[in-house]
């Protein structure tokens, strides 16, 4: 009997192997495993065997059934895959989900700068763009008709009182201090305006970010430490900084802050045969912000006692930082809103 069974198995496998399509495979399934199929028949015949033979025969027939089933399933699977393959799609066609839009590079830069300071414990504060001379100038120790105002040419509004468009974000310093008690640390992003003729590097409207920290023991060394964290986070760990003495009416001592040139790494040398770096002009440094210790006169103007509190302030132009970070050639690109520009960021 064993040989007979072996023969059935061999024949079945050979037939399955040579079957070409799904239909002939289905026919073979009926031929062997159907209700009147050959293997089904073998189970029926088992009833005629002696009790001693039955268990062995059962095992053998079951094995044949499993082998044939597996072979058929395998062959059928392959056959239907082959059929599916005839209808294969072009997976190289583009996806149909719409492309997401982009956040404006100025907003991205503002967010990036603010998040550095927020992580240091600063609070984001905003203030009005239409300002008074008091907050834009006098409260910040910028006297009327003084040459220190030259840096702050200003748009004025037609009005019976003197309203102007703030020429820097510093007025928010004075406004915030009048309403709050130290200690605090704030960061103030916003639009500012100066009547400059528009060209590749000047715009009559631009964005600034102002920082102010006031407490009972804030020192110049703290200003240096905080700005170093900022510069390294924004421009990379290898960024070096230098603080140059400068003059701003609302801070004293005042400093302008340079970072090592992000193009030449502070070497000053240019690429491809140019003797000077095109970004820093060979100096190795680029100016990124102005800063200093809050001038005691500013504290007095807002009703603080300069003997009891000290603080530092800093301010930077967002467009300038974005231009440096992304290597943008013309400030006007920010306000043309050409989507071919916007979508690069």
């Amino acid at each position: 009997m064993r040989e007979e069974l072996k023969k059935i198995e061999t024949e079945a496998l050979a037939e399955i192997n040579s079957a070409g399509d799904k239909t002939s495979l289905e026919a073979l399934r009926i031929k062997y495993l159907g209700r009147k199929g050959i293997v089904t028949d073998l189970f029926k015949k088992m009833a005629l065997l002696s009790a001693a033979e039955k268990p062995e025969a059962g095992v053998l027939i079951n094995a044949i059934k499993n082998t044939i089933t597996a072979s058929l399933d395998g062959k059928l699977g392959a056959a239907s895959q082959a059929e599916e393959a005839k209808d294969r799609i072009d997976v190289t066609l583009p996806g149909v989900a719409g492309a997401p839009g982009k956040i404006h590079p100025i907003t991205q830069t503002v967010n990036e700068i603010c998040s550095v300071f927020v992580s240091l414990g600063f609070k984001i504060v905003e203030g009005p763009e239409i300002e008074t001379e008091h907050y834009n100038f006098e409260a910040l120790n910028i006297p009327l008709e003084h040459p220190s105002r030259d840096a702050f040419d200003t748009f004025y509004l037609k009005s019976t009182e003197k309203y102007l468009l703030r020429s820097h974000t510093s007025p928010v310093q004075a406004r915030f201090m009048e309403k709050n008690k130290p200690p605090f640390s704030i960061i103030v992003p916003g639009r500012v305006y100066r009547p400059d003729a528009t060209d590749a590097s000047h715009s009559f409207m631009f964005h600034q970010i102002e920082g102010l920290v006031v407490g009972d023991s804030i020192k110049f060394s703290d200003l240096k430490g905080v700005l170093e964290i900022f510069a390294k986070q924004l421009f990379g760990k290898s960024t070096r900084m230098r603080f140059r003495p400068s003059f701003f009416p609302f801070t004293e001592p005042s400093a302008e802050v340079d970072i090592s040139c992000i193009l030449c790494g502070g070497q000053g040398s240019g690429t491809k045969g140019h003797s000077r770096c095109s970004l820093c002009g060979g100096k190795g440094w680029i100016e990124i912000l102005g800063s200093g210790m809050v001038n005691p006169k500013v504290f007095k103007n807002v009703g603080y006692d300069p003997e009891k509190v000290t603080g530092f302030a800093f301010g930077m132009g967002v467009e300038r930082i974005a231009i440096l970070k992304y290597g943008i050639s013309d400030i006007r690109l920010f306000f043309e809103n050409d989507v071919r520009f916007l979508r690069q960021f």
Partner: protein
Amino acid sequence: MRISYNWLKDYINLNLAPEKLEDVLTMSGLTTESILHKSGNDCILEIEVTANRPDWLSYIGVARELSAITGNKLKVPVVPKIKPSKEKAGIKISIEEKNLCPRYTARIIKNVKIADSPDMLKKKLDAMNLRPVNNVVDITNFCLFETGEPMHAFDLDKIQGGEIIVRKARKGEKIITIDGVERTLADSMLVIADKVKAIAIAGVMGGINTEVTAATKNILLEAASFDQISVRRTARSLGISTDSSYRFERKVDINNIEHSSDRAATLIKDLARGEICNFIDIGRGAPSTKAITLRLAKLEATLGLEIPSVAVKRILNSLGLTIKRSSKKAITAQPPPFRYDLNNEIDIIEEIARIYGYNKIPNTIPNIVEQAKKIPLEVVIEKQTRTILTGLGADEIITYSLLGKNALSGLGIADNTVAEIKNPLSNEQEIMRPNLVPGMLSSMLWNINRKSKDLKLFEIGRIYLKGSEAKFSEKKHLAIGITGEKANWAEGARQCNFFDLKGMAETLLASLGITNTAFKYAANDIYSRSCSASVDIEGENIGTMGEVSRKISNNFDIKETVYFCELSLDAILKYADLEKRFSELPKYPSVHRDMSLLVPKDVLNSDLAAAVKNTAGAILKEIKLIDRYAGKQIPDGKLSLTYRLEYADPSKTLEEKDVTLVHSNILRTLEEKFGARLR
């Protein structure tokens, strides 16, 4: 200011190469913008002098600073004592405006031989980009750069009436200045005049009528002090800035007048063979500077660095301060007369930090007190808005807050609500934007003209309004604009429409926790009358939405159809709810039923949906429009609408009969109220 390296060497021993000098000056506060190499081994350093340091606006001033930094000795030219001749000047000086001219000196020099300057002098003026005129004029210019004191030489014989009067100009008084321009003066301006006419605009520029020419024999050399603000106003309103006015605006050392005049007179004697006659000095010098006390503890507390008292004293000495008193705790020092900027302790602290070197101050981290709410809700909402809208495919734009007046044409904005700029630079900066429409449409046009025609743009920005009594207000708005096609190869192309825009707004508002937004038809001049809506939350209008009217598109040269929406972010902020709360998931399955209706065309979806909700009660979870059709098989004046209704009961599995009852109640209501019929 330009500084010639070679010329500077006249006043200090320089053992620094120009590049090193640049660095030293920059790091002490005299920022060097550029170095220009010139022939003859010279180079020009372009340095930026801050408004607080007029004492740096001269070669001696810069050399003095270098001497303080390097310790190299300052070499100020020695001017021999001048013995004035006994001859009477025959000229009288009177100052009518003592406040505007605290000191006026005149030196008479006779029998000068006007000629070209020697090459040595010409070369120096050339380094300053100045054209040589003649020896006398060139000497006054040379002395201005050397000493910082602007001086002017008049032709004495052209001064009429034997008198110099320092007075205010007469209203409308005219003078032709030495640059050949006739200038009309205002009565606030200070002039130098003789008995008959104005001969100079004080501190700004001399007049051609008394100019030193080749024919000049005798001169009057003026060295004076003029009020900063007066000179600044005059120069600004005349639209001129001269080396003289620049210095007077910033303040000229009143105590340096005599030395400068002596220096110029000596040079005129030497180079133009003039005879120095008498010197008239009217007015006063400045009172001596006030001594300032520096507390060493304050110095350390401000800088975060302890600087030894010896070093502090050395720095103060090097800057020309005189130490009056000194203890372990404090040093009292008197600034030199030319340091008008040193008045308070903090000024002294800055000087010490500057000379000691900012880079020697350590970097420390302050003890920053964490703020309770670091990111205000306003900022969170803006951030979320950007995330959602960019996710929906829109690009953020930033447009100018200033506009030309014509940008508002047709927008239905009342003139008296618009904030106007008094001093625009161009006709594109006349007003502040009262809404975000012009910025959006201009950006669209820019892109359409560059073949980017399928656009979804948004802007978050302020608008500016003028209220009554000249009070201005600023409000934060959000604008979204779309135009062009939505197209992909799988689904084909179609024009974008109002509902694409509405969907964006709804998605945004829902993501901010605002679900009860109502859109209602409302005519608005910005939009076409066929497609114009107001957006309301809880009865408050928060914005508008619609298809931009043809008239307005035409104003912006846009031929394409644009859908636009402007919402108040301040209002959104009020209704936004970002609090998240969990509600239990339903335990029992919900039942979906579709309802296809024929309704009269003018029935509003919102009315139908509201009626359905009212009738169904709590069992109705959601109603959704899944099909809308008019055309073939639909009678004229009718619409086919198919709604999908979701019913659920949180306490049990709904039975067929429950749903059928509610569903047929709904149908009856819709029939009665709207004449709807089941299809």
